[in-house]
């Protein structure tokens, strides 16, 4: 008896055209804390390869005609070599930039997962009931994954070549966006220069670095450089062979050093011996 449910997930068996092997998709109602009862989305796990909005749409048309889909959010981790997503923008800047990738929370979804959001509650209900019915009857339906093959690969290769005009536009747009965000940040920063803190200091902002992170980073660096310089200065002044105790100490240190090395070597050789290294044949 094949189970139809696992840990609250319904199991939806599908197969691919021209293949007899069954594939299992797991789904449940998608609920977040805020929209407990108003949710109109289904969460899917173990979607087959190359699942796009179009494929899901086609499948729904096949099994639940009339359930109109609004949005399909796929996990961006599906084809990523790592298991978690790092947002490099977040990590390198504190500017309020919209991560283009992260619309709908695709980066938080685990690999091979996806969320289908329906146009309204009724459409959701329709689809969910239909899928549940298929699941409980263990009815195998066909997943509309087309033959991919060489055509698909070639189109992928072609897609890598970017259209220069389009590219120029996107880039121009992103530069504008970035400049705006930066301008906002600078404004904020300028506000801070007006503030006088408890000790009576204000923040000084140079003309070059325009963000807070940039400035703070620089400050840190500057501080450590100063300390190093001071240390160097001190060291230069000291004489280390003036007092007798210094000479003695130096000799002693040398001896200890030698001895330590000797002991280390002994230890090393002992280890080598354990590994039976001294067998020349």
């Amino acid at each position, binding site marked *: 008896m094949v189970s139809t449910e696992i840990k609250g997930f319904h199991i939806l068996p599908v197969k691919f055209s021209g293949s007899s092997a069954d594939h299992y998709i797991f789904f449940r109602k998608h609920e977040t804390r805020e929209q407990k009862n108003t949710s109109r989305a289904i969460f899917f796990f173990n979607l087959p*390869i190359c699942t796009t909005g179009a494929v899901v749409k086609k499948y729904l048309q096949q099994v639940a005609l009339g359930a109109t889909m609004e949005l399909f959010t796929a996990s961006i981790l599906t084809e990523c070599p790592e298991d978690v997503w790092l947002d490099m923008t977040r990590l390198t800047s504190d500017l309020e930039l919209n991560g283009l990738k992260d619309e709908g929370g695709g980066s938080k979804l685990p690999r091979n997962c996806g969320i289908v959001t329906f146009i309204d509650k009724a459409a959701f209900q329709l689809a969910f009931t239909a899928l549940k019915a298929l699941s409980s009857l263990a009815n195998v339906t066909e997943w509309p994954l087309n033959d991919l093959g060489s055509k698909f690969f070639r189109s992928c290769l072609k897609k890598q070549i970017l259209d220069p005009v389009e590219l120029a536009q996107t880039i121009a747009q992103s530069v504008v966006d970035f400049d705006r965000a930066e301008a906002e940040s600078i404004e904020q920063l300028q506000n801070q220069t007006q503030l006088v803190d408890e000790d009576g200091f204000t923040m000084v902002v140079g003309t070059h670095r325009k963000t807070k992170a940039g400035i703070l980073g620089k400050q840190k660096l500057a501080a450590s450089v100063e300390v190093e310089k001071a240390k160097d200065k001190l060291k230069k002044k000291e004489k280390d062979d003036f007092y007798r105790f210094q000479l003695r100490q130096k000799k002693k240190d040398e001896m200890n050093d030698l001895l330590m090395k000797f002991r280390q070597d002994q230890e090393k050789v002992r280890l080598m011996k354990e590994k039976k290294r001294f067998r020349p044949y």
Partner: protein
Amino acid sequence: MAKRPLESALGSRKEGGEKKHVVIVEPNEEDRNEDEEDRSDDDDSDSDPESASPAHNERPTKKQRKQLSAQEVQIARETAELFKSNIFKLQIDELIKEMKIKDSHIQKIEKVLHRLHHLISQVPASETLSLSQAEQLFNHRKVAIPFPNPKPTKANYTFAYSPPEDVSLVGSFGLKTGISQSHGSSPSIDIALTMPKSLFQPKDFLNYRALYKRAFYLAYLVEHLIPLSKKHHLPIKISYQFLNDDVLCPTLKLESIKTDNEEDLHFINTKFSINILVGFPFGVFDQKKLLPDKNCIRVQRTMEDDGGEGHLPPTPIYNASVLSLTAYDYYLKYLYTTKKSTEEFKHACVLGRLWLQQRGFGSSFTKGGFGHFEFAMLMAALLNGGGLNGNKILLHGFSSYQLFKGTIKYLATIDLSSGYLSFSSLVGESITSKYNPEGFNVPTVFDKNVKLNILWKMTNSSYSLLQSSAIETMELLNDVVRDRFDPILLQKSNVDYLQYDVLMSLTVPDSIYASFSPLEKISFITFENYFKNKLYVVLKNALKDRVTNISIFNERLSNQFPINKLKPLTSSSPQTFKIGLRLNPEEAEKLVTKGPNNEDEKAALKFKAFWGSRASLRRFKDGTIQYCVVWQPKENESIVLSIARYVLDLHIEKEISHNLGHEAASFSSKLPTPLLPATSNQVVTSLVSFNNLKNSFEELQKVISNIPVGIKHLLPASSGLRYTSVLQPVPFATSNPDFWNDLVLQLESSSKWPDEISALENTKTAFLLKISESLNKETAYKAFITKDDSITFNDHICLLNILTPEGYGFRIRALSERDEYLYLRAVANADKQKALAQDIYLQFNRKYLGVVKHTRTITSMAHHFPYYSGTVRLFKRWLDSQLMLTHFPEELLELIAIKPFVDPAPYTTPNSIENGFLQVLNYLSSWNWKENALILDLIRGTPTHLEDDYKVANLSDKLSIQAYRVIELNFTKIRQNDPSAIKTQFFIASKDDPSGILWSNEGNLPIATRLTVLARAAMLLIKEHALSESTIDLIFTPSLNDYDFVIYTKPSNLVVSSGVLPPNSFKNLVGTETSFPEDLTSKYDLNDAFFHHLNAKFGNILIFSTQKFSALASEGSNVICGLFIPVSLAKKKFKVTLGMDIKPLDGSKDEVVVNKSSIFSQISLLGGDLVRTIKEKK
């Protein structure tokens, strides 16, 4: 072979063993000595708890501790001075301990020797016999008299046996410098019997007479030893053996037989065998008459031989053989005295012996004629002088290491062939040894006292090999940076296909034996000696500077034979000689052999006579007119080989070159032939095709630097631009996976770079767009932009692709000064994901910074080592044929392949592709990467001069001790965190990358293990089946059975468009590409695209392997193999984060398992028309 009276040697063993001569005594050392003495009484209980000496157990009082450390300090100091370093001394100590012969064995052998001595004294004297009487004395079925060839026919002298004047234990066992031997070879103990003087007449040294008498003596001894040994319960098997392969000197070899009789004394467990040598009394012949330039075998001469002069040729081998027979006893005394006067002599002998053994040297003719006896004699001579003015090279107070090093240095720096060393073995009077720069052009260490050249079994060829071994070792000994103990003493380096750049075999037709005339026979004694010499002279004269060493050796014949035979059985198949060459990389591939000037008539005649019809007159650019020979390069045959074939035919015998085999040549045929005009007359080291690419790059560099967008540098970063791509760059070969050559464009620094990563990438793309625009508008270059996903999580990277009018492709990535800073900031901000962010930083570093440095370094290395390029390309080709290439960054492989070039010890820098390749495989097969780091010193060449170079080395950019330590520490740290090498397998560091993990960070353990396994399998195959075409084919055939499933993909017709000449076809019929296709993607390899999609979709549970170069796959049909990662196959609890295709398990509540059949159907859907079949492993 030193000797000491047997009885006294046996008697004095104990006291000798107990004498302790450590200058500085370490407290626990003393304890250990006592232990050892105790132990020598009981048997072989090695497990004595010697380390549990009281010093370790009890806490010493404060005073004791202070003393102890003071002593230790002293040892630490002295060892650093007397030895190379502490660790070196400690290792030597351990090694000598390890090499010691077991006490129990020594005791057993001593018993045996006593009994044997008794047996020998029981042999009765014989009557005086004539030749025919002597022959009739023995039953021919049982005992033959081992007369040297030619056998005596009539003799006007008599044969007799009377008890030996003296029986002594000689050789290393007598000197106590014996060492335990490797498995398989049995150590032997030499006993010398001295024939009584009364048996000889003064003229007996002539015409083998003394040797005939000796042969009878031996046979008589055997005849009586057999019954005597039975009677006295010493079961032994006796056979004849040629000492050191010298056919003039048969000896008796005694081996123990295991019996059940308890009274029998057998010593089979000790693995020792006993040699009974029979010698002549010292000084019985006039030594002057046996000098190397005298003739002592008189033969009938025909008129042709005469040649006008009345002298017979000298018989140096015969003379030396006879003389050394008189000196067994004498040299033992000499060495024994030296040993007594020089405390560490014994240990230095052991070191020397091991050093020689590891390199395959030995006293016998076949092993080069320089063994431990010669080493010990040389060392003894150097203790009495050895310099030009007789100044002492070694001092009696030297440590074992100093004695060893001093002798090696002498061998390395002093030429004993063009000059010679003379010394005197006269005991008691100190006569200084002196080096004379004027010599005899044969290796000579001359004993004035015995009038014997100690090196009489050496040839110029074996001497030059010894000398170069000594030079290499000297360099290692002078290395102050790393511990070189292993390659100096522990590693074996006598594997011929790793030792020589070119290894040929020559099968000798029967007709050759006719040229071995009686006159040749008296000077060379055996055909092998004669023929080897002849080959050597011819090849040396022909190859001159092209080679640094020529070694010729014959397949080892057995030198042992039963006592009823006259000599060992010769096999019926024709004899084969092996010729090993070491090449001089600068000269080896030159197309012209230059001869003398036109004016020099005498030399010209000689030149013409040697080269025959191929010698011609040529006028050179500088106006000189010279005789020379011009060679045509042939595909898959080096110039050296062509020359060898030609001169062998000309001077040895017509068409003998058909018998000359060079199987390793088929290695280079594994490298694909580029589809270029004029490649067939290219020498193997040619870089022409790469240089064309380079020129195209430099042209582009000029064009781009003229575009006013603020460019600092455009730097090369691809395998094609550093001479290491598998396929040679061919114009318009767009199907070549390496068609696109990466370049890194450094943009000028500015404060305006955005402070956020995607905005930064976009800004850089804007620059690239600008360049692209102006290239497309103003030049013949074609440019377009593509997306790049080589750095995870940074998907805004764009690359500028450029097609040049010359037909090459370049791909530019832009780099600003801000990038690194931002990646590092990401690491600092990453919190929990720090490790991941670090990996991303490394990805960036590899693609933008590391690769530029790497390309610079490798380019200069490839120029410096002409065979590196071919080697690394063949190595990659091998990996690709084994479906492994895609698993490693090419940079990593290039670093592995450079190891034998910059650090070849114990071998030499490879100077041929096959040798380089085999050395790389050999290294990989033995590299224990869990415990050892690979630290490369990537400088041009190794220092050639010895100590003078020390200062230069300090100034050069060699790795300093500090840098080396830092790298070692990095490795230790990494292994501490990852002892089983799950994250980092290969640690490969150099000055460019002290971290050691830049290129190996993303490796995985099963793949690394497989690499080692494959290399081992290949080396084993070669070891067992020798190098032959079929072995080499097998090495390049993948084993598909190891994978869980194999996807066979549709054959692609990409051979021509990859720029490769299809196998079995002609260049003029194929036609080359001359323009770019309209749609570049139509020429891309779809198998590769499929492979990438598979990795993206299933890479988390499957390891996929494929051949990167579909064009090189057999019949153009590639495969993709899959292997399930074991963890992914286990049952799992259901979780949405499993990330793999699963199915519910029947009857289980929440367990799931991987859904293989669904994966297969998705794979075949994905592949679509590209898949021919998928075969699953049963």
